[in-house]
């Protein structure tokens, strides 16, 4: 009953041509934006989300035809995983292909699936490099700085009574949301407009490789900067050679290259990760090393959180102060 209804109205509308409207496209984008990770699972990752995002399209193109609807739903319930924002281009392309297929062009299920699988890797590559690799850490670092987690707070170590600036997280929220939604909408609609041939030709032309390379250059600079700003290793170890005290950090390591330790630590971590170490394993090891490094076996046990200097190998909140005045130390 509804089959004939839809078919009849379809024929009267546009000479039998089935067309996706703009609102279908926007609806599909909204569904994908909201629910891309709603049913994220180990078996097929974003598969059901993809099928969900296709539902406005399927209704429009195959509305009422049970067999076609079934085939279309099954077609989109296959393994899928990509970046939720940049990956939207794949949905756009798929919608365009579905539209052509519904209008009788010889596009097989296989062609649609292989287009999806072929594009999801490169788009995830671009999306992860730019989204997770650059934009998020960058905006987070900005938000954290505005929130006021400066060296002052870290040095006193006492968060009680200290207040941060809520503008930091609010600004981060707005910027990251604008970025994600803007990019998502642009790629979704462009994918539909430009279609498969254009997208694959762009991917083949090497433009995307240039974008990824440029993004990695920017990403490396940002990560380098974040390393300097936020990775802190302070050595409290002091060697007594007769009358002279040699502070390992200030008098030796910082003389070689300022901030040698954080840089070395990050490179070491990177090297271990590249050799297949699991990040959680590293995390546990690092915490243990830090706690062991804080055991005050070389000097008096600290009474307040900042006076660990000299009694343990590692110390929190900043380098040891210069040892010149002996009377200004305590409060």
């Amino acid at each position, binding site marked *: 009953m*509804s089959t004939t209804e839809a078919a009849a109205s379809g024929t009267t509308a546009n000479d039998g041509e089935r067309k996706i409207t703009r609102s279908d496209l926007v609806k599909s984008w909204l569904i994908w934006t909201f629910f891309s990770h709603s049913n994220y699972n180990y078996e097929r990752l974003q598969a059901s989300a993809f099928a969900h995002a296709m539902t406005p399209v399927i209704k429009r193109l195959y509305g009422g035809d049970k067999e076609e609807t079934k085939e279309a739903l099954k077609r989109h319930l296959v393994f899928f995983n990509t970046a939720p924002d940049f990956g939207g281009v794949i949905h756009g392309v798929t919608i365009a292909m579905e539209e052509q297929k519904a209008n009788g062009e010889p596009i097989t299920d296989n062609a649609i699936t292989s287009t999806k699988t072929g594009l999801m890797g490169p788009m995830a590559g671009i999306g992860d490099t730019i989204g997770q690799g650059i934009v998020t850490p960058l905006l987070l670092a*900005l938000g954290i700085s505005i929130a006021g987690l400066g060296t002052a*707070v870290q040095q006193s170590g006492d*968060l009680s009574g*200290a207040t941060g600036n809520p503008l930091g*997280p609010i600004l981060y929220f707005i910027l990251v949301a604008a970025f994600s939604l803007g990019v998502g909408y642009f790629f979704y609609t462009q994918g539909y407009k430009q279609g498969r041939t254009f997208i694959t030709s762009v991917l083949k032309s090497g433009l995307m490789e240039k974008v990824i390379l440029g993004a990695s250059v920017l990403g490396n600079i940002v990560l*380098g900067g974040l390393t300097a700003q936020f990775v802190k290793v302070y050595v409290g170890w002091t060697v007594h050679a007769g009358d002279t005290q040699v502070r390992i950090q200030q008098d030796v390591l910082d003389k070689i290259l300022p901030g040698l330790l954080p840089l070395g630590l990050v490179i070491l971590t990177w090297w271990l990760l590249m050799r297949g170490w699991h990040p959680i394993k590293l995390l546990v090891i690092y915490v243990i090393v830090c706690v062991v490094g804080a055991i005050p076996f070389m000097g008096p046990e600290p009474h307040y959180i900042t006076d660990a200097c000299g009694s343990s190998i590692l110390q929190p909140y900043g380098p040891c102060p210069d040892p010149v005045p002996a009377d200004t130390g305590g409060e």
Partner: protein
Amino acid sequence: MVKNPKGERRLTRGGKISLVISTLVVIIGIPTAVQAMTFTETEAAPVVTISLFQAILIGLGYYLSQSPWIAGLSFWTLNRPLVAGLLVGIILGDPGQGTLIGAAINLIYLGFISAGGAIPGDPGLAGWVGTTIALAGNLNYGAALAIAVPIGLLGTVIWNGRMTVDSLFMHAADRAAERADIGGVIRANVLYPQAWLFLITFVPVTIAVYLGASFIGDVINGFPVWLLGGLAIAGGILPAIGIAMNMKFIFLGSAIPYFFVGYLVMVVLGNEVSIMVLAVIGVALAFLHVTFLGDRVHSANKPQSPKMRKSEETEATR
């Protein structure tokens, strides 16, 4: 209109549900925020006790941080300790300090990256519960991080439970597709997994926060000073893991030297400069690099995404 009336009605119903939930968030969230903001002007009392209502809000917040209802942006926003810290602060009546604690916890997850569904700790749980305990127990910096790290690891259990059980709903979607039941596919993508997610996020977090936050805070406050110091040291060292995880995908080929450029520029400028300045320099250098490399980009080492890599990892021997 070429609309299938039946299907159309289903979709709007789904839209309504999401609209209702989003509206609820706003209706509950904004008055709470306003109330909290007005309360804290003169607030200086150190001990925060958590009421059942606050615990429920925190549990709800953690659920939202994993849910699709914030326009799918939760992963970028509520899941980050920086944002979670502010919201917990608002709920517990001290937005300023909440922000600060959230920012401190977020340092550990600065370079956090989710690769093909595998996560190294859950920044969301660390942010929501970690900030709550830190505020309730009036913890210092080291102690706040001390609690955030294990909580973040615990969060991976929730995450794995979700990713595993969600696989079942894929089969519900398959069956619905077999019946050409569009509504069934939508339910399999939204209703069942979200009900399950609500169960494994909201319930344990609300109970844990209501019954345990002050207690855990007290226990941690009983730690010796040197141990708290050690955990604060970890707070300075752990960002290295997140940064290195990101480097795994971009610290490659001809882009490698730029890491050292970024590092040394920041060190030489004494960490005083905003990261945005560095980003602008980075854009300029990226443009120059790509332009001068021209078509030889192909031969340069291609960076790989975690999601691409994931499929390769199954083949590679670990």
